[in-house]
Each structure stands twice: as C-alpha cells, then as structure tokens.
C-alpha cells in the first residue's frame, strides 16, 4: 500500500530529480507488477518498512517493534490520509477556480493557490464604524431594497450589485474587472458607494445626483475618473476636478448634494448596506451570490447565468 503513496509522492518529486524518478518507477512496478519481483531485490514497501524500523530503533526499541509489527495498519492510515488530502486538494482547487479562494466562498483561511490571501483582501468597514465586533459573514441581498441605488449599466437579467468605495485599494483593483464584465457579458450592474472614510461621504451624494440628473452613462464616466484618480477628500478643488472632467456643472451639483433628500438618501443607502452585514469593500453580489474581496474575472463570470 505504501507503494501507492510512494508512487504519488515520488511521482511528483520525480519531476525535479532523477533519484526520485527512479523510486517512482520502482513504486510503479510495485503497484502494478507485484508478482514479477526479482529474487535478489526486496520490494519497495518492505524496504521502506525496514528502513523506518531501523531508524526508529536508534530512538526507541518499542516504537520500532510496534512499527514493524503494525506496518500494514500504519500504511492503511497513511493511505486514508492521502486520499483525504487528495480530495481536499481537489475541493480547494475547485473552490479557488470558482470562488477565487481555496476554502470556499468568502473564507479567509490560508490558501496555497493564493498564499498572500490577496483574492480575499478587503478595506474593512470597521475603519469607519470603530466596531470591533465579529462581523456576521452570512451575506444576503434578500432584505435589501436595491432600487435605492443607482444603476451603472442597464444590461440583461443578470444582476451585479457592486459595493465599493472610491478611495479603497481593492475596489479600485476590482473596478476594471467589473467594467470588463460589463463590456463582455452586459449584466445589469447596480453601484453602491460605501464610504469607509467620512471625508468621502459626499461623493455618495454626487453619484446619486449624477445618476438622477444624467443617467448611467455619466455615472460610469464619473466612476471611471474616481477609480483611476486617488481622490480622498471632497474639497471644492477635487469635486470640481471630478465634475469638470465629466463635463458637469459644479454649481448645480453643489446645490443637489445640499438638499435634505440627497443627504437622507445617502444615509439610507449606508444604513441599508451596513444592515446587510457588509464588512468591507469590495463586496459584490452576482445574482445574489456574495463575493468579498477582489476576485479574478473568471470567478465573476462563472456566477452569471
């Protein structure tokens, strides 16, 4: 049985080294041609058994005796562990492909395929709320009134609900991916600006006003500008730069954002998002399925209908 383990382990190591390749070939023989063993040679599994026993003898005789006697049981346990770890690796690979994370949707454990954890990084909302409570990660769009938020692209019946903030590093990284998704797949994209920084709150209002007055196209242009330029405060200068860049009148919009209704809408949006359990940006729901952190394009695409 240990030959099976050896075949897999040394088969992989054999890619890199000739000496391991030799053992892998022997293991192959051992697994598939057990009966044509040469008399002058012992089988790989027996060699492993005695070599392990010999090494253990130096440390503890009872342990060596136990290992030699129950080697088949130990082998069996290792085989089970091997199968289990192969299955786990398969699941991890699948998760990584589908969710961009080995551990399943929006988990943050270590992932060998993404060792730095980049695909799950977020700009945490706690920065704003000062909350240290454990966040509830069960995200669902069920309770949310999505009509509160501006539509970035009116496309087919796939609904992408994109929660991000202009200043945040990972939202900025994700934005071009979402744009690519719009260009190639044309889903309907709703944009929710979640300011993780008080200074950016008024940009939510700007976005809402632009959408209300000019529609999706202008909002998209505004977003393009905001995500490609690091704007971290809404001063007269930065706002006028943003608005003039997309050919809008600063005065008209300054008026719009001052309105009670506008402030109220932004607040309502913020409350709705935090009530949802969103704990950082970017968080993207595609047809109701949540993705937290910047994921590769294929992950978003797979979630479309």
């Amino acid at each position, binding site marked *: 049985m240990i030959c099976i383990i050896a075949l897999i382990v040394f088969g992989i190591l054999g890619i890199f080294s000739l000496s391991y390749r030799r053992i892998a070939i022997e293991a192959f023989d051992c697994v598939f041609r057990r009966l044509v063993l040469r008399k002058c040679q*012992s089988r790989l599994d027996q060699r492993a058994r005695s070599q392990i026993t*010999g090494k253990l003898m130096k440390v503890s005789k009872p342990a060596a005796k136990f290992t*030699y006697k129950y080697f088949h049981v130990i082998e069996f346990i290792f085989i089970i562990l091997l199968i289990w770890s192969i299955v786990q690796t398969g699941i991890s690979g699948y998760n990584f492909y589908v969710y961009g994370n080995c551990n399943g949707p929006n988990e943050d454990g270590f992932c060998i395929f993404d060792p730095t954890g980049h695909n799950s990084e977020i700009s945490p909302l706690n920065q704003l709320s000062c909350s240290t409570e454990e966040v509830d990660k069960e995200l669902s769009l069920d309770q949310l009134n999505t009509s509160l938020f501006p539509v970035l692209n009116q496309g087919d019946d796939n609904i992408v609900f994109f929660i991000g903030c202009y200043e945040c590093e990972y939202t900025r990284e994700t934005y071009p991916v979402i744009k690519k998704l719009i260009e190639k797949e044309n889903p309907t994209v709703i944009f929710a600006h979640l300011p993780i920084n008080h200074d950016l709150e008024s940009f939510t209002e700007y976005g809402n006003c632009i959408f209300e007055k000019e529609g999706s196209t202008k909002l998209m242009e505004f977003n393009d500008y905001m995500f490609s330029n690091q704007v971290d405060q809404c001063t007269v200068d930065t706002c006028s730069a943003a608005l003039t860049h997309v050919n809008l009148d600063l005065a008209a919009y300054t008026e719009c954002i001052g309105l009670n209704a506008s402030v109220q809408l932004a607040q309502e949006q913020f409350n709705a998002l935090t009530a949802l359990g969103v704990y950082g940006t970017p968080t993207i729901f595609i047809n109701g399925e949540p993705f937290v952190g910047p994921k590769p394009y294929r992950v978003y695409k797979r979630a479309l209908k």
Partner: protein
Amino acid sequence: MREQFKVLQKNIIYVDSACMSLRPDCVINKIKEYYEEYPVCAGRSNHKLANTLVTEVLRARKLIQKLLNAKSEKEIIFTKNTTEGLNLVANSFKLEEGDAVLITEKEHNSNLVPWLKLKEKGIQLIIQKLNDDGTFNLAEYKTTLENNPNIKLVSFHHASNIDGVIIPAKEIIQIAHKSGIKVLLDAAQSLPHITVDVKKLDVDFLAFSGHKMMGPSGIGVLYGKTEELNKLDPFLVGGETVTDTTHDSVSYEQVPEKFEAGLQNYAGIVGLGEAAKFLMKTNPDKIHKHEVSLNKILTERLKDRVTLIGPEDPELRGGIFNFYIENIDMHNFSSILDSKANIATRSGQHCVHSYYNAKNLPVSTRISLYIYNTEEEVNKIVDEVEKVIELLS
C-alpha cells in the same frame, strides 16, 4: 591501511565486498592519472601521449601476469568482467554437438547461463553434485568424468560467493587433464582472497573481475594458456582485433589483441594493474588468514542464533558468513542493519538462484569480509545482528 579507503571515513561498516570491494587511494589516483596525463587511445596513434599509454597498459598486463604467475603477459586478455570472460570461452571454445560441459550445482549465474544457452546448439550441460555442506567431493567428480566421456570442458567456480568454499582446483585440474579435458576457473571470488598461481594449478582458462579485488569496475581479465587461446575463435570482433582487412577477407591479430575488440577501458586497465600491485604487496594469503580470523568470531558468536549456509568451520568459508533465520524476511533484516547501524550487507539469492532453488533455501543475508574489516567491526555486527533478531522475532 584503512585510511587508504576513504569511504570508510563515513562511519560505515562495509561487509559486502564479495559483491564489490572498496578501492584504495592508489588505485583511484592511477585512474585519475590516466585521465589527467595520457587520456588517449593506445596503439593507433603516433604521439607521445599514446606511447605513454602503451607503456602503461603493458605495465598493467605484466603486473597481472605477475599476480597470476602466468608464463607471458600475452596470456592476459582484458575483458569487462568475469561474466564476459566466461562468455568468451563459452562462445569460442570448440565444442560440437554431443559434447558436454561440466559445472557444479553451486555456480553463479554467470557460470551457468552461458552454458545453458549452448544447449540450443546441442551441447550438453552436466551438473556436478557437491557434499551437503557445499564442499567438493573429488570421488564423485571422478565418477562423473568416467561416466561422461563426452565432457570436453570443466567450468567451476574456484571459490563460492555464497559460502566461501574453495574447491581443490589443483586436483580437479589434474584429474581432468588426464582425460584430455580442459578446465576453466571462475576466480571472481578466489583471486581477491588467496594466492592464485596459474602455473601451479595448471589451469587452462581463468576469469576474474577487477572490482572484487580492489580494482576499478568495468574491467576484468580472462587468463588463458597461450596454446589454448590460439585455438579459440575470436568472440567480439572489430577494430583492434585485426591486422588487415579487405572487403571480403580479414587477418586476425595475435593473442591477446585478437580478443580485445574496440578501444579499451584504459583507465580500468591501468587501475587494475595498480590493484594487482596493491594485492601482491598485501599478500593474498595474509588476507585469507585475516578474513578467517574475523569469520571465527562471527561463527562463534552467532552460530546458535542463525542458520548458516555452507560448512560450519570458518576455515572453510574464508570471508563469507551467509545466513538466514527461520520466519524472518532477510531482505528486511539487511535493510534494518543498514538503516539502524550503517552496516552494509547483501540479502537475496546472490545470483546463485539455481542452488537456492535446488536446495530450497530461503533468501539469506551475506556478510563478506575483506582486508579492511576489523575485529571491532565484527563484534559490532554481532551486537547489532542480535538486536535485530530480538526485534523481528
């Protein structure tokens, strides 16, 4: 002397010399000398380096002649190993359909398979039975020769690799010669351990390997009396074996070149010469005595705990202590000795499958001693063997 064998500094107890011996520095340096100072081909080229090599090859041939006490260095043919030497005779000795070759029941595959192959040509193979303890029975041998007048060649191992028993070669050869039968000795296991004097033995052919006598691997020798070699057809032919060729004819070289086809393993040849010198300096008879003294310790301390293959008397087994233990896998046994205590033994049927099969012997572990093993090592081996027996039983 041990310091000549660098690998021993690795804290290893090496008792697998019947398979391959270790090489002293002087042999290794000689091989290096060839590659560094005259790494060319001998004979064909007309330059100083080639001349140096020709001299070195001749020197090696003469050293081996001296080691064997042969009449002439021309009786020394370089081969790859014992197996090639035995095959050369098997393929070149004039045997006709109905002729027979006699071997013992305890031959290494290298001195069995070439003869088995000749059966295809109608050449009979007769097997000489031995005593139960593996020793040679001269009376039975005489009877065999009397009963089989078609025997033309006797091909025996001189010393056995599985029990170390040395056959009474001189008497065997005398008896054979009385009936006009030629004798080939497989000296792979004798030449490294005892004095082998081909003149005294009056042997017709004798083969051995360099790597078992502290020489390089890939080089061996077939000794043959000049008149016997002249009667042999060449075996491998090609470059170096001829004096001239046309598109439809060939004139062969004299011996020994007639049998040395293609450019040779010159590094091996010069190294082998050096090994012969080292062996003569050490005196093979002293080596044998040393091995027997160590084997006595092994036998005394272990004989009641293991089953020995071969006679109980260590004097008869030279440096070989080959044993098994009922119900213990001896492959595992050897492997544990290696991983636990760095003791290098060999387990298996030691390429004498036919004897193991005939006698129904299980796989065994062989301890084979040589010049560099010590009493301290042998005592350590016994201690460790006892521990492993305890563990596995």
